[in-house]
């Protein structure tokens, strides 16, 4: 994971030198998260969420592996084995509540990480590959979370699995065979539960692998920063350790406090009560909803109510839902503005906040029953979502007049502290 501008590692202790000559692992750590990695000095707290995402993955892996020791992936015992974890396994309730809420917190920090990237233009050259790999992680996360939610074999597990695999059934001709193949039957069954468990155990390690690539790709150009201005020299950076390890330590503390409040005092707040009812193929829940982190996409799926010529509305909804995520893969080539940071893009910034509100509205509609007025609201909100990325962003890039950028990161920092010198005074605009 070495990269061009890392500081050279010179081992001091003879043992480290001995190891480094044979396996450059100390060098790797030094370059990746040690003093070897120079990072812009002006990162704000929004830059904490990458490390917090990694932390959330570790929580999921540790609690998940422990629960897998007590869980039975069989439709006859899955539900009661989860209750066995809750009642009879030492600290089993803690493992399960931490795992269930951990999934939500993983998505919270990843969504903040993604919106950080959207606001500060972290997807732009030369960091496109970081962005693309991040989206791969996001897709893997969604698949993992969905399959994990099926494992307790409650009512929402079962019917969620049925609805989501049913999306593939909307594809013409091959759709139904694909759905049957995915489920291993015509409806969710023991084969489904088994394969979902197998994949739910596998995919987090695939995520860990892509995270390594994500960080590797990041370390080639180095971290972006709130001004979006490139690093000009050593005065613009501080070594990752101890500066950002200390800041991330504080961030992790805040994360753990909020996480603990949920796990210990409101562990079922983010869950759905129906999942405490054992799966019953003969009884459909009144409202089938996925977990909250899928609500915006669920709203887009359900927003299509009218067939387009020979394309059924359901298929349009499925296409739109996938498109809503896949369009992010071309984002670096849609937003052609050379200015990265939203802080220097007055027009972009307004639309960015509209997008944030729009996604929150979509989320609210996705969690509500599919009835008016939620359908009409989600139609308008979905329309804006697509228009924002596919139409508005390229137009803004063409017409917007960005504010003047600071000459360097150091200049921006000094200006903020009222020590502006020379041309740095012009920087203070933002």
């Amino acid at each position, binding site marked *: 994971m070495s990269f061009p501008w890392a500081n050279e590692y010179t081992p001091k202790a003879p043992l480290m030198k001995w190891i480094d000559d044979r396996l450059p692992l100390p060098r790797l750590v030094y370059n990746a998260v040690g003093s070897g990695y120079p990072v812009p*000095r002006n990162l704000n707290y929004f830059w904490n969420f990458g490390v917090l995402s990694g932390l959330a993955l570790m929580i999921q892996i540790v609690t998940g592996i422990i629960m897998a020791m007590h869980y039975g992936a069989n439709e006859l015992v899955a539900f009661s084995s989860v209750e066995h974890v809750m009642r009879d396994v030492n600290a089993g309730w803690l493992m399960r509540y931490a795992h269930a809420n951990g999934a939500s917190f993983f998505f919270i920090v990843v969504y903040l990480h993604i919106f950080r990237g959207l606001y500060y233009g972290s997807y732009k050259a030369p960091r496109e590959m970081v962005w693309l790999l991040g989206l791969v992680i996001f897709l893997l996360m969604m698949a993992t979370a969905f399959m994990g939610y099926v494992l307790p074999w409650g009512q929402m597990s079962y019917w969620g699995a049925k609805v989501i695999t049913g999306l593939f059934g909307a594809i013409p001709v091959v759709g139904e065979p694909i759905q049957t193949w995915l489920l291993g039957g015509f409806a969710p069954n023991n084969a489904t539960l088994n394969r979902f468990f197998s994949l739910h155990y596998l995919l987090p390690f695939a995520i860990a692998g892509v995270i390594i690539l994500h960080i590797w790709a990041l370390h080639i150009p180095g971290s972006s920063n709130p001004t979006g201005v490139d690093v000009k020299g050593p005065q613009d950076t501080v070594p990752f350790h101890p*500066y950002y390890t200390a800041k991330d330590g504080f961030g992790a503390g805040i994360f753990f406090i909020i996480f*603990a409040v949920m796990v210990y005092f409101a562990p079922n707040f983010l869950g759905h009560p129906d999942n405490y009812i054992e799966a019953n193929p003969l009884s459909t829940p009144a409202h089938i909803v996925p977990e909250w982190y899928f609500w915006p996409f669920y709203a887009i799926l359900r927003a299509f109510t009218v067939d387009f010529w020979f394309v059924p509305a359901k298929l349009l909804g499925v296409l*739109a839902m996938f498109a809503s995520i896949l369009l992010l893969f071309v984002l670096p080539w849609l937003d052609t503005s050379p200015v990265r940071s939203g802080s220097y893009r007055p027009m972009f910034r307004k639309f960015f906040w509209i997008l944030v509100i729009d996604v929150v509205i979509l989320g609210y509609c996705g969690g509500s029953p599919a009835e008016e007025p939620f*359908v*009409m609201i989600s139609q308008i909100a979905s329309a804006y979502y697509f228009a924002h990325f596919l139409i508005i962003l390229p137009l803004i890039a063409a017409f917007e007049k960005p504010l003047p950028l600071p000459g360097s990161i150091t200049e921006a920092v000094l200006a903020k502290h009222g020590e502006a010198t020379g041309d740095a005074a012009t920087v203070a605009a933002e």
Partner: protein
Amino acid sequence: MVRIGAFLVGLFFAGWLFVSFLLGAVAYVGEPPQPTVEKVFHLTPKEAEFSFQGPFGHYDKQQLQRGFQVFKEVCSACHSLKFVAFRDLEALGYNEAEVKAIAKNWAIKTPDVDPKTGEASTRAPVPADHFPKPFANNVAAAAANNNAIPPDLSLMTKARHEGTAYVYSLLTGFGEQPAELLKRFPEAKTPEGLYYNPYFANLNLAMAPPLTSDGQVTYAEGQPKPTVDQMAKDVAAFLTWTAEPKLENRKSAGLAVMFFLIIATGLAYMSYRNIWAETKH
């Protein structure tokens, strides 16, 4: 190329969504959706105070014992409690001998096989057994209950929104259908064999009111008067314990964890400030 393609895709999705919206809006204005009887008459659970609420909450063992008594004398005739074992009752303050006696004298026997012949038989439960089910299977349960299967109660208070208050409200919420309901929705008259209860999702419940009169269960000396309200509250508390038996461990561990985390985070903040003290950022 990318931008032209994106523009067309965006125009299609946004445009078609807008068309769908207009069609939906026209339909909505032309024919506003009528409220359903459930929308108008379904009630959210009543407010009720319990000792286990809040971060410092604890179960009131006396109340759990009373609730267990109500379950034993009323609910257990039809409802199972399959995730709870007799041994768990020690958490209610019973000692080992008492738990043994409760299991041994339980009205429903545990299915087993005759150790000599291997034929199916039953025996008195022991503390290691879970509560035996009142019906051999769902068919038997439905046959005995006017075609409705009494649900297992182990997780009931977690399987409904505001579960504890829901159980309490449901048990005290039976009554006549309001005249206004019958006037506005004459077709929603409670069918024969069902019972009107505004706290139940579809308003009509197959379960007959189980708690009908004060003093239906005789509480031990020194306990509150067994009014219907009191019994409903006690059994709701008991079912909260069956659904979340580790609630007290969770909350007390949570307080210790918060104490630790706040100090650790304070230290982390100070070391962060210390390291960055000389660096403007």
